């Protein structure tokens, strides 16, 4: 039925018909208003108009595809054999006009129109534009099989319906947008919460990728992290791209992710297989189009993400890019957090392994000095299990009665500063263990939180030290008693041989004198050896004490010269003595100084014949440290030494050459003792020598010798 036919009805019939039409239009309005989805709106528009009371039998609603300009059928009624989503191309069909100018167009007889497409052979058509926010978004097409079927009333009804539909579409679109935004927001929130709860890197990246794939509605994708050390991307998550690309390494600029990583800009590749930037490593993937974005924190690259469509019909658009741009920063932060966490985790594990596998006992205490944790080394050393010690005070647990107060003091101190000590502690079974103890305050983020203590079992070390000390003491005692025991018979040998010499002289048996003298000399040599060995062993045992006293330097030297004179002049040598001015007195070990000077003079005499031996003494102030020193030198004009011979001179039992011992005698200990005596007194002995010219030994001693760093009492 058409409006024209209705207009010729009778009045009461017309009244009734009008009421029915009103009701139909009300239903239409209600249905449109009730529609939430756009598609519901389309359907309710065409269904509502296709009402017996209105008499519109052939209806279609097209939407404009803004990219192509085509019209795509959304809903229709009365049109047979029309495909779903029927696409009417741009420039075709009558309804094009309403789209172009946004006005209602009426074609009274479609046969006159070349553009007419529909299946009806004849009839009329009304095209009403659908306008949302001033833009024409589609067109409502109403047809009749008869020409001239529509009039003003129809135009009003259809325009009103189109307006209502437009409003409903606008509202549905807003709603959809809202919903989509809400979904996006939720997806991002989900991603972030997933990502922050999952900190293991690979899981995080897998989650990131899954979110991106869901959010963008893509086929698949991959995520890579950037390794700064070698400037490469490493694929760590891969999903549905036709191959598992995990562990693929990409240089900057290589492939889609390499390009975005380098340019730091996202990229859409509509047809991947035609793209020239393809990486060889991706020649076998099943993708059609690609969208990739760098993962950045500020300007710093942390990775890249790529999403793919394998369906040729699906093409990435600006909307997808917008979504990816929203998503990428979240993903970047998640990746970075996960990376930092993983790194921290690795370090933590590393240190935990160190502590766990350390053979020394390590224990951590809280500020109350209660045990928080201990390692297997602690369990092993002290015999307690970790469960037994956690929460207990450390000192009552392992300190002994004797070391309790010392242990408490250590612990208190370790709260503030590192401590180091040696002590004895008690194991669970009551046995004692000697330990080296190290304690340091544990400071986290500037706040003191407890103590880390390390116990190192030194029982064996201490035992070894005690044994070594005992052995050394035994050696010293042995040498001392040996020396004494040897000396007694030696005294007899020396004494009797001397006495016999006197007797044979008195009795006139001179033929025995030579032999007796040899016995005597050998005895004396043996005695000096023994004495020197005793001295050395005392020095080495640290038992050579200094007996410091004040004495007049010149008087001491004169005394030495008197004693040495017979010895020095024996080989036809001359002894010259040079005294510096103002020698004054010195505070030192007189006996040892005399012994040293006599030794040097005796050496000089031994290696010099028909020459001069010069003993010089001087008092000087050192330039470096202003110390006042007394310098004693003994120079000879004897055989001298080579540099090589001088090298070993001050070592025990070394004369310049073994052969010299037989020729010149001596124990080879005198200079070793001299040097040690000098060191004991804070001085030194040096030698200069030239073969064939002579040697010069110089002893330097502080005018005031100190013992163990204590200033000398003047």
């Amino acid at each position: 039925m058409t409006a024209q036919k209705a207009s010729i009805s009778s009045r009461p019939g017309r009244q009734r018909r009008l009421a029915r039409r009103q009701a139909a239009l009300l239903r239409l309005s209600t249905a449109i208003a009730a529609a939430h989805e756009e598609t519901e709106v389309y359907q309710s528009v065409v269904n509502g108009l296709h009402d017996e009371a209105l008499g519109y039998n052939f209806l279609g609603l097209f939407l404009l595809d803004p990219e192509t300009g085509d019209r795509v059928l959304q809903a229709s009624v009365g049109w047979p054999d029309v495909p779903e989503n029927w696409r009417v191309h741009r420039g075709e069909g009558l309804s094009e006009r309403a789209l172009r100018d946004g006005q209602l167009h009426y074609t009274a007889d479609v046969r006159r129109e070349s553009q007419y497409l529909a299946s009806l052979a004849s009839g009329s058509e009304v095209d009403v534009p659908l306008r949302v926010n001033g833009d024409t978004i589609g067109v409502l097409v109403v047809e009749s099989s008869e020409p001239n079927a529509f009039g003003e009333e129809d135009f009003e009804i259809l325009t009103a319906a189109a307006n209502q539909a437009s409003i409903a579409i606008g509202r549905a679109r807003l709603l959809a947008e809202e919903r989509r935004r809400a979904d996006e927001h939720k997806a991002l929130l989900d991603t972030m919460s997933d990502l922050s709860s999952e900190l293991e890197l690979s899981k995080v990246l897998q989650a990131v990728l899954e979110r991106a794939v869901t959010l963008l509605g893509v086929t698949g994708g991959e995520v890579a992290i950037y390794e700064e050390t070698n400037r490469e991307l490493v694929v760590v998550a891969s999903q549905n791209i036709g191959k598992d690309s995990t562990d693929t390494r990409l240089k900057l600029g290589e492939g889609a992710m390499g390009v975005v990583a380098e340019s730091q800009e996202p990229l859409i590749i509509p047809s991947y297989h035609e793209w020239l930037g393809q990486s060889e490593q991706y020649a076998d993937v099943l993708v059609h189009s690609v969208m990739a974005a760098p993962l950045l924190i500020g300007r710093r690259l942390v990775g890249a993400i790529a999403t793919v469509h394998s369906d040729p019909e699906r093409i990435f658009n600006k909307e997808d890019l917008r979504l990816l741009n929203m998503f990428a920063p979240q993903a970047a932060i998640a990746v970075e957090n996960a990376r930092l966490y993983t790194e921290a985790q690795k370090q933590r594990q590393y240190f935990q392994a160190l502590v766990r596998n350390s053979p020394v006992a390590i224990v951590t205490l809280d500020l109350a000095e209660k045990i928080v944790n201990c390692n297997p080394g602690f369990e092993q050393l002290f015999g307690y299990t970790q469960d037994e010690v956690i929460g207990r005070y450390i000192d009552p647990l392992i300190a002994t009665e004797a070391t309790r107060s010392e242990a408490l003091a250590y612990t208190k101190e370790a709260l503030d500063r590192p401590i180091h000590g040696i002590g004895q502690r008690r194991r669970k079974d009551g046995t004692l263990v000697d330990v080296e103890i190290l304690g340091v305050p544990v400071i986290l983020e500037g706040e003191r939180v407890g103590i880390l203590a390390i116990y190192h079992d030194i029982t064996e070390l201490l035992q070894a030290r005690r044994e070594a000390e005992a052995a050394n003491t035994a050696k010293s005692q042995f040498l001392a008693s040996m020396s004494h025991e040897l000396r007694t018979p030696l005294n007899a040998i020396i004494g009797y041989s001397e006495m016999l010499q006197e007797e044979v002289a008195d009795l006139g048996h001179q033929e025995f004198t030579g032999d007796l003298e040899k016995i005597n000399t050998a005895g004396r040599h043996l005695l000096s050896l023994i004495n020197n060995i005793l001295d050395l062993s005392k020095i080495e045992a640290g038992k050579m004490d200094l007996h410091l006293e004040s004495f007049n330097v010149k008087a001491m030297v004169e005394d030495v010269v008197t004693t040495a004179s017979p010895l020095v002049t024996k080989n036809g040598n001359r002894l010259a003595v040079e005294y510096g001015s103002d020698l004054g007195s010195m505070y030192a070990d007189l006996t040892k100084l005399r012994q040293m000077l006599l030794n040097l003079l005796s050496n000089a005499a031994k290696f010099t014949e028909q020459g001069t031996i010069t003993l010089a003494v001087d008092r000087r102030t050192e330039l470096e440290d202003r110390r006042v020193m007394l310098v004693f030198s003994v120079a000879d004009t004897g055989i001298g030494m080579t540099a090589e011979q001088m090298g070993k001179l001050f070592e025990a039992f070394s004369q310049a050459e073994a052969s010299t011992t037989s020729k010149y005698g001596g124990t080879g200990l005198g200079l070793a003792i001299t040097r040690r005596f000098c060191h004991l007194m804070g001085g030194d002995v040096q030698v200069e020598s030239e073969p064939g010219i002579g040697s010069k030994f110089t002893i330097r001693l502080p005018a005031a010798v100190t013992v163990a760093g204590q200033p000398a009492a003047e």
Partner: protein
Amino acid sequence: MSRILLVEDNEMNRDMLSRRLTRKGYEVTMAVDGREGVEMAKQGGYDLILMDMSLPEIDGWEATRQLRAAEETRSIPIIALTAHAMAGDREKALEAGCDDYDTKPIELERLLSKMEGLLNK
């Protein structure tokens, strides 16, 4: 003729030194330990005492202190004889009240000069 009291536990040393001193013209009497040395000295008649320091019963240091403490022996010169010049022995001997000090093995000339020095005072 000076009369010398030689306090020495070692038989060979005693024999040697006494014979050598006798030959040099001294009259030598011998004691074998510190206690005997002090007793004999107190009986009087000695011009000089040669005192070994490491003696049984009471040692030379203690014997010297006792001799110095007793009125009748206070002024008799004492020469301490010790083994090898142990650090501090000399000071120790003089501190104990000895007048001089010499080390063993005895060098007769050196000892004689120390003895003569004290005897001629």
